[in-house]
């Protein structure tokens, strides 16, 4: 699926959720299903700076596709990571750089996350884009 097809699917899923708490539970459940990052990668090298909770992001490129794996000690951050990775994983650097991540606004994530958690989300996006730029 393309980045935009995945984003549209997520927006559709969010439209079925009634309120903030439903969204919270949905995100937390996603977090529970995120494959944990191996302990050896939970180091300073992979730490995402500016995140309220500890969060790590590991990136690699194979055959012009970027693969991300990530983890956090906060369930909601894990859930947000899970959403983000669903969109950008297994995509080319060009696709990551050329597509706006509009699902964040249209799902209400950007306006309905507390500013401190929103900070973490935007830091993660910046880190993903920086890696894509370096691969491009």
């Amino acid at each position, binding site marked *: 699926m393309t980045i935009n097809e995945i984003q549209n699917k997520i927006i559709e899923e969010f439209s079925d959720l009634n309120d*903030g*708490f439903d969204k*919270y539970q949905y995100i937390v459940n996603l977090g529970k299903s995120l494959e944990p990052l191996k302990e050896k990668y939970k180091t300073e090298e992979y730490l995402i700076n500016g995140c309220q909770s500890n969060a790590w992001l590991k990136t690699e490129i194979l055959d012009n596709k970027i693969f991300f794996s990530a983890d956090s000690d906060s369930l*909601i951050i894990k859930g947000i990571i899970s959403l983000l990775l669903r969109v950008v994983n297994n995509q080319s650097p060009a696709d990551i750089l050329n597509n706006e991540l509009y699902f964040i606004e249209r799902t209400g994530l950007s306006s309905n*996350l*507390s500013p401190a958690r929103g900070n973490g989300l935007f830091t993660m996006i910046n880190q993903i884009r920086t890696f894509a730029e370096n691969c491009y």
Partner: protein
Amino acid sequence: MGQVRVKSISSDDLMKRIGSENTKVIDIRPVEAYNGWALENEKRGGHIKSAKSLPFKWSKYIDWIEIVRSKNIKPEDTLIIYGYDTDSIMKIAEQFYKTGFNNVLVYKGYKNEWSVNDKYPMEKMERYTQLVSPKWLKGLLENGTASNYDNNKFVICHAHYQNKKAYDDGHIPGAISVDTNSLENPETWNRRSPEELKLALENYGITHGTTVILYGRFSYPNNNDPFPGSSAGHLGAMRCAFIMLYAGVKDVRLLNGGLQSWLDEGYNISTEETIPKAAKEFGVTIPLNPYFAVDLEEAQKILKDKNRNLVCVRSRDEFIGKVSGYNYIEKKGRIPGAVFADCGSDAYHMENYRNLDHTAKEYHEIEKQWAEAGITRNKFNAFYCGTGWRGSEAFFNAWLLGWPKIAVYDGGWFEWSNNNLPFETGEPE
């Protein structure tokens, strides 16, 4: 939600429950009302004794329940929700039910019964007037007057560190740009000399009698950036507030939450620069309040005095010597004998002193975390960090609380480590 489940509680029943175990009184009014402002002209400002602050504004956040948990409000507690209006009270009660809280009561008599009757106990932050809301500031800008403001001259300062762009990108209309370097020396990071401060403040149009309202823009500081402080504008505002208090500005106020809270209200920002009109004379000898600042020699004496604390407002990783916290400080470790008052994640974040929207954390919570470390009102407390910004935020919080014996150890870890003085690493015994 079945509304039948929501029971109301009377003023006298609420009075009996204050302080009882597993009962949490929840104040959903804006933080300013909680702190002391009588926002709806109620007879007494402040909050019901022992209440916790959980403003209605936060209920829109997806992660609201995590804020609830961080305030130690548990599903097994009996909650008593109060606010200004019934609709908001019921919405929050419903939100609590939905998230697994089954013992929720609502109290609707706050404005008409509780605040008007002195037999019902209330509390407020001693210097609540110095922590202002966006609404108050907007009113002052539009009308030139505001409650608890008895002056005819004010200056709004958008503080930043070498980041005029943060101001140019959008500031509160009428605010002037204040670079922290104008008030602190970029070599020592200490406050500038009295002569330099006099000139800088006069150039900003600030005198002893001016009301100054400070704020900054928080723009996601990253510790790996060459100048992370440039993105920690609201922390810079705290630093300026401390220096202005030290210099002798009589009425220093802070916009609670910084630019973020102004934006959260949906108020306009301006890209038009306001040029300050210089003042002729500051009006008093600087520093008017020299005791607010402590230097190295005094800091060493404090360490030997059991009635005085040298309070380390740094992150745990800095305190145990895992990191120095700054790209321009090499040595890692702590001052032996310093009392630890954890700031949060790193040198540019103050999570343990702020709410998730950057407003100041509930003042009782700050007092509690300090008390657990032995930092109490009856002692003299000199706050420090790496170079003084975080120490200034802790100082400002203590000042808002009305603590009488407080200071900033200005040199902090930067000065201490540069003087090759003893230091410790690892977990303290």
